[in-house]
């Protein structure tokens, strides 16, 4: 019998961090289940969904735009609206913004250069499913690697999001021209999160940092709760 929480990792054409995400999720106790974008249902017992990094559909039109209307996204939308935890990493964040599951949009880096380095970020809010193992003000070191990571929303939206604790991670320095140095946001109910940094590349001190493991482990906690809830007969 399998007691590991099932985390579905959606694979789009052009995803390239799906395997790393699966490996990292396994390292923090989950059972990853890879789901091709043309599927219309999530695997049985899915407790959480991860949209991984990469260049879905070659970043054509706008990053994440074409993936946001892929067949599997209806199931992801339904899962999210039932309170299921959904995490978008890098290109996955772009997809969630284009799908309007998260506020704002990711734009080309202000410096028009691909950034690839470790980044330090501050935890701004922990009342969501993803940062429960962190403290407000805690600094995390997680690598970034993206060309279009400048998060943008209009000023009114930004102020409202900050007041509601939806701006959850901010870079310590200006990495890409992101408004307010935003690195990650959550939806209003705190069960959908997107971030540009790659927690799946920071789960082992040997690779420089294990801070990403804090986030993924919290996701797996939430996946176990949600999966058990979904499995409870009514």
């Amino acid at each position, binding site marked *: 019998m399998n007691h590991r929480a099932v985390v579905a990792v959606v694979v789009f054409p052009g995803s390239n961090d799906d395997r790393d995400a699966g490996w990292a999720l396994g390292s923090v106790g989950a059972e990853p289940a890879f789901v091709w974008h043309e599927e219309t249902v999530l695997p049985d017992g899915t407790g959480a969904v991860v949209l991984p990094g990469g260049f879905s559909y070659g970043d054509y*039109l*706008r990053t994440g735009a074409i993936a946001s209307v892929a067949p599997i996204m209806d199931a992801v939308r339904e899962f999210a609206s039932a309170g299921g935890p959904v995490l978008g990493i890098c290109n996955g964040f772009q997809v969630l913004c284009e799908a309007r599951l998260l506020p704002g949009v990711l*734009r080309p880096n202000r410096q*028009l250069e691909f950034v690839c380095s470790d980044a330090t970020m501050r935890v701004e809010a922990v009342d969501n499913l993803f940062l429960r193992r962190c403290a407000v003000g805690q600094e995390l070191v997680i690598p970034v690697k993206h060309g279009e990571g*400048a998060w*943008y929303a*209009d000023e009114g939206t930004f102020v409202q999001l900050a007041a509601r604790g939806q701006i959850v991670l901010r870079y310590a320095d200006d990495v890409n021209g992101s408004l307010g140095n935003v690195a990650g946001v959550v939806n209003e109910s705190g069960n959908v999160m997107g971030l540009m940094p790659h927690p799946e590349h920071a789960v082992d001190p040997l690779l420089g940092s294990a801070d990403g493991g804090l986030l993924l482990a919290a996701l797996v906690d939430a996946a176990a709760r949600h999966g058990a809830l979904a499995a409870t007969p009514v």
Partner: protein
Amino acid sequence: MKATILVRPKAGILDPQGDAVGHSLRKLGFDVAGARVGRVIDLELGVDDADAARAEIERMCGELLANPLIESFEIRLGES
């Protein structure tokens, strides 16, 4: 019916691509105060009625072709 859609970054939205293009033009000696870079989409539609085509394209822009947070679009029918 053929149609062309012009998608532009909205006014006030940072457009690093446009800035880089403007900068390069100035380096070439051209007198350019600013540049913005958008996108042109040529479509061949199944419908022939102009009003129906326009309504269809507006839906396309809302669902996929433009992101209303940062982009505006302009529809030109029968051009491409």
